[in-house]
């Protein structure tokens, strides 16, 4: 089982991102689960969401404490939240930042992946909403879901031109991160 933790701020769509990964993984023929760390939702407050992916049905209902992957949608969270807490040493943490990965100091042995998702989102969507862009980076950095499955899940959730723009953002981030 692979476990993913999303760090965002209220209004940035962390919960939607978790949902998109769950739908994409299921599209790939795997089982999945996504849920928010239920809080009193306020715009701008730090929020958490989780996703699990497995080859068999998922029964576990506790929160994720030792994630394989962490996605950080807002770099300012690094000052207020221990985003790398519990992250597996062989895992990956994907951070939305305009800095180089080497410039980011985190208490983890896991790979740090830097992506300037805000810039990509502004250029493609015209708005600094980075949740879908970060999914493209996740997909490129981990290969846990297929790009086409992710795109399909985005189009289901956001039909029409909004979906198309989001797919463009996802592809840009994917290509920048995938090697």
């Amino acid at each position, binding site marked *: 089982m692979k476990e993913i933790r999303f760090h965002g701020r209220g209004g940035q769509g962390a919960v939607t991102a*978790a*949902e998109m990964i*769950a*739908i994409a993984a*299921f599209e790939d*023929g795997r*089982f*999945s*689960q*996504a*849920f*928010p760390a*239920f809080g*009193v939702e306020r715009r701008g407050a730090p929020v958490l969401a989780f996703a699990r992916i497995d080859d068999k*049905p*998922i*029964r*576990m*209902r*506790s*929160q994720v*404490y030792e994630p394989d992957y962490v996605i950080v949608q807002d770099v300012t969270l690094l000052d207020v939240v221990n985003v790398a807490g519990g992250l597996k040493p062989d895992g990956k943490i994907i951070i939305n930042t305009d800095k180089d990965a080497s410039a980011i100091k985190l208490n983890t042995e896991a790979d740090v992946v830097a992506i300037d998702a805000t810039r990509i989102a502004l250029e493609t969507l015209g708005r600094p909403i980075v949740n879908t862009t970060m999914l493209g980076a996740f997909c490129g950095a981990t290969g846990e879901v297929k790009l086409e499955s992710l795109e399909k899940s985005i189009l289901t959730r956001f039909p029409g031109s909004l979906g198309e723009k989001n797919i463009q953002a996802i592809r840009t981030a994917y290509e920048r991160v995938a090697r």
Partner: protein
Amino acid sequence: MKMIVKEEMSLRERMARMRVVEGSYAVAHAVKCCSPDVISAYPITPQTHIVEHISQFVADGELDSEFLTVDSEFSAMSSLVGSSAAGARCYSSTTSQGLALMWEVLYNASGMRLPIVMTVANRALSAPLNIWNDQQDSVGARDSGWIQLYAEDVQEAADAIPQAYKIAEDPEILTPVMVCMDGFILTHVYEPVELLSVEEVERFLPPYRPKNILDPENPKTFGAFADPSYFTELRYMQWDAHRRALKKIETVAREFAEQFGRWYGGLIDTYRADDAEVIIVTMGSVIGTIKDCIDEMRSEGMKVGLVKIRSYRPFPTEALRKALKDADVVAVIEKDVTVGNEGALLTDLKAALYNTPTRIPVIGFPAGLGGRDITVRDIRRVVDKAIAARDRGIEAEIEFLNLREDLL
């Protein structure tokens, strides 16, 4: 057991029928497939998404129901009492303070023998204000005369809706049913679910054709007045209907499994309990985490099993006696506490075993109160405590799981 094997075999086949949806959507969709005539509800976290989805179905013309937007939960249940007495199939959903506000009407609905179905998105009761999950709300309503079914996952919470109508509307039962699902944990999770269809549900659930309804052509009264010479018998008849429901719940679960291939247990279900020395008894969404933990402990040679309470009212006394008779020790994990005594399920379970030859330690753990997470590590600690109670005797009959001594 046969049904479980069937389920395993067709997993890939079932995946083709599944969609990843939110728990609340799956429940709303199941309600739609039961075609209720009247829906009345007041939004309250974490139930809100369920009624939002239902009102969307009505607005989009996908569901031909009267959707009453009322001013409170008291009005929600009151309007359903009237509608149900007039012969309508009725649905509501609520949680926590909303359920508390319905309190006196809950007793009216069951006392008038109205087969209303309601989802309770389980949440803690104030004070202090807490919007998160535990089961204090519905456990507190255990004496209201409603049948209470508890769901382990989203699929079960959705599939329980047509089952609930089939149980409730049976002329031998005529009792309202609460389907309880853990708030947020199940209402807000996205996971793969097989959605029901109207056609399938119509084959499973016959139309509601009540004999006694409010009818201007044939005037009758419901729940009006019973003096001491009648009241006891009316309560007895409710009590007796619950006794019949013990069988009906099993029958309906089996019929559902035959048609849909999905089985959640009848009154109870068991997991690796046949040769288990330690048995955990619980209800609701924590069961999934416990099952994973049991697999882990079994691989280490520990004989641990689970008994899941699916029907809390009627209480499955006989089924529990049978399931627990060969265990060495029982640990009850429950998301409620009766302040002034112990967990409600612990009391019920010990009472069920008392007049039997089964003399084993039974200890209880109020857990997950106000949304505190329950982890595999917590379950392991419960099992360790149970083993200690077996080997060295009971030290504490009740222990609050994960109590933070530093805050006391």
